């Protein structure tokens, strides 16, 4: 019983260890850890503006991690989530620039859903490409994903500096601002849109239910744990691999739309901001459990948002957040797998015989 409880709250362990180490580091460099953490908190949840900014950052992260829950369950390492997000933002930008801008009379309730659907489709197709490279081309999804990430980034740069260049001339900063009817309705002057948060939460609940209760979820779980047995028990593995990737791609695409249509108001060069990779870390840390994915995602966006505030308050460099994040990754990789740590250690010879 206690074992169950420890297993359940285990993700806290690497986080607290990482924070302890960081605290020690702050003391060594002569900063007061309490002030720093206070600044981090103030920077992320200290006021309305900060809180909304944290939430706005959290939404795409949540969407990507939700998608990754599906692929990780199916045993796929969808590193390409970053590229799928970029593909989504390209799709959304295309709708904003090529449909909304020339036709200002089309109302927002048509344009925005259209942009979202196109973004999700682009993300899903980009993901399907990685899946098909895997199932038909025997290219591991990690390598395919990395290549497609680069291609998506290159496509962004090409579009910004080429066809979608602002009229005042070529810069690599971004396109012209999108017309407002194509954007998410924002809260006040912040970059946070409650609609996007609702979409993300609905997606998370749906995915959690699908993975728990539906036959599709069971198939993915089976396939993720043993592809060959699952196939022999009747799971059409190619189809399910493509489906899992496409669901993840669609959610990442939606995240991309949220990035261009609410965080920014135009297509920028590094549109994804590394959120896809961060999402992989979040899901790994959460051990593919939906509730933990939600909480850990929020923790990370607070951390990253608070980082900039630390600089102005205590004169510590804002890369502190990155430092904490990096330390966390190390500790998660070291201690994240509860069962691996507490399993009886095997002797070398036993391990060899097992291997046979």
């Amino acid at each position, binding site marked *: 019983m206690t074992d169950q409880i420890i297993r359940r709250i285990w993700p806290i362990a690497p986080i607290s260890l990482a924070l302890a180490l960081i605290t020690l580091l702050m003391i060594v460099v002569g900063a007061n850890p309490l002030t720093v953490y206070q600044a981090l908190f103030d920077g992320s949840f200290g006021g309305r503006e900060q809180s909304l900014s944290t939430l706005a950052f959290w939404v795409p992260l949540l969407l990507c991690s939700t998608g990754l829950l599906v692929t990780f369950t199916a045993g796929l390492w969808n590193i390409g989530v970053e590229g799928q997000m970029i593909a989504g933002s390209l799709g959304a930008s295309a709708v904003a620039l090529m449909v909304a801008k020339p036709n200002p009379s089309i109302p927002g309730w048509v344009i925005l859903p259209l942009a979202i659907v196109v973004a999700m489709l682009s993300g899903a197709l980009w993901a399907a490409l990685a899946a098909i490279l895997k199932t038909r081309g025997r290219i591991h999804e990690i390598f395919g994903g990395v290549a497609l990430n680069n291609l998506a980034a290159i496509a962004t740069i090409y579009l910004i500096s080429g066809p979608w260049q602002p009229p005042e001339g070529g810069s690599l900063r971004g396109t012209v601002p999108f017309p407002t009817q194509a954007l998410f309705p924002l809260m006040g002057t912040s970059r946070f849109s409650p609609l996007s948060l609702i979409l993300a939460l609905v997606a998370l609940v749906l995915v959690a239910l699908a993975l728990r209760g539906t036959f599709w979820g069971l198939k993915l779980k089976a396939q993720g744990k043993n592809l060959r047995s699952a196939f022999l028990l009747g799971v*059409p593995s190619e189809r399910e691999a493509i489906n899992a990737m496409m669901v993840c791609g669609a959610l990442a695409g939606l995240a991309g739309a949220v990035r261009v249509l609410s965080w920014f108001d135009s297509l920028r060069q590094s549109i994804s901001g590394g959120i896809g990779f961060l999402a992989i870390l979040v899901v790994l840390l959460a051990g593919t459990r939906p509730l933990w994915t939600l909480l850990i995602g929020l923790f990370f966006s607070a951390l990253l948002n608070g980082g900039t505030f630390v600089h102005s308050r205590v004169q510590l460099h804002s890369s502190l957040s990155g430092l904490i994040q990096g330390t966390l990754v190390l500790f998660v990789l070291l201690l994240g797998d509860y069962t691996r740590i507490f399993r009886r250690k095997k002797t070398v010879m036993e391990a060899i015989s097992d291997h046979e």
Partner: protein
Amino acid sequence: MRVELQDIQKIFDQVRANDGISLVLEPGRIYGLLGENGAGKSTLMKILSGYQQPTNGTIRLDGQDTSFSSPSDALCRGIGMLYQDPLDFPALPAVENYQLAYQDNLLLDLKSGAEHLRAYGQRFGFAIDPHAYIDTLTLGERQQAELIRLLSLGAEVLILDEPTTGISAEQKEVLFNTMRHLAHDEQKIIILVSHKLEEVQQLCDEVVVLRQGKLMGTRSMPSPTSELVRLMFGGEIARAQKQLFESGRCVLKMEHVTVRSEDLTIQDISLTIREGEVLGLAGLEGSGQQVLLQACAGLLPSSAGKILLDDATVKGKHSGFYWIARLAPGVFAIVIVWLLIRLFGGHIAGLDFAGGAAISLLISGLIWLIGTILVAWTDQSPYHAFQQRGGAYVPAGRLEEGLIPGLTISEHMALAAPTHTFVVDWEQIRSQTVDRIQRYNIVGQPETLVDGLSGGNQQRAMIAFLNQPLRLLLLEHPTRGLDVTSTNWIWELFQERRREGTAIIFTSADLDELLEQSDRIAVFSGGVMSRILNAGETSVDELGHLIGGQEL
């Protein structure tokens, strides 16, 4: 050196792989170790060579109690094993591979290593080029190189595990002469682990026979073959003549089928199985029985011939959307041609050539992608078509192929069920699972993870997941690891199925089981299938010979 094994026992969760084996091995003699698969030969040799520790019992070398912590420890004390797959490094030249044995030397002395190899080679008539890479050598030559390594490290006892599999007749002659020389002139102990009675009779001075983990006896050679076969497989059992199912409809028909798998090709197989018939496949592991089953199930493609299940080929469904993916290059070509015409027609407006080509490339890529997704969605693999037509395949690897570690028994039931609902009805699945658990006598709850079950229970679980009714049931070692009572129970359930008209093909290492349960038996040896024997008219003796590759 004199080796004594006293009361050696090795227990792997409930299975007694070795059960109280006591042996004395005298220097200067060649011993043959005989026994069917699973008789405990490999376990005993792994214990003697330090690869595994016995659960109980002692090893004495020259009267002194010894225990080995690892194979290299055993080798230090003079016991060396030559594995069926040589434990060498294919990417290294022979001499470097040889020098790896001398890890205490700081410098790599390739010169003396090469001399060693040559000197030993000359002594025994081996011809190994010290600078040839291991992966360019034949299996026989790799074996020789290994042998030299073991001898140079001072092996007094040499264990050879199936050494003649995959080597040429000439190499076999050289190997056997070397063994005779090492034993009779240099007073070493040679242990030959083999299934091949002929070779054992050729080479050995004494034969030790194991069966089901127990020592059945030792015989000085020469000894009649029938005597050895009787020890290996147990006494002759009188069997009732079985009714043959000539009247039922034909379920499976194979016509001159050739199947290539990674390491084995079975050729020109023809057979017919009728409703309610049981065909047993005998043979050593990896002689082609598994390849046959997998070909029937549509898991391996046949390169020639026909496999008909209920008069129709076992093949997957190919999607009708195939043409969409094929459309893509056509679209691309048409747009390029159109662009070329515009380019040379002098009338260039709007898109330039490169832009047009890029866009047409993009469009055709998109068409290809969508087409391929549709194809993947609608394709059905031959194996799943086989399942849909009432076939089932139960593989030998329990946690590797049959079951999914980390999933519960209920979850397996839900996966294996013939029909599925979008939202899984866990109540119903659970009650079904409880039924099956009772019926198949599985020690576990519906919520038990399959990897938490013992081997025998996993085996019963795999059989419990089979659906009713079936046309054709393919089983690999259906009762391996089960005790007698469970085995009988499982076969009773199979008999029930055959009364319903299910045809069964199964493989087994247990010749008694094959003779008792099958109507007809086919024996595989090195990818070649024997003529099909009527189970009532054959004997353990005949099967034993066919398994060893001897035609009677």
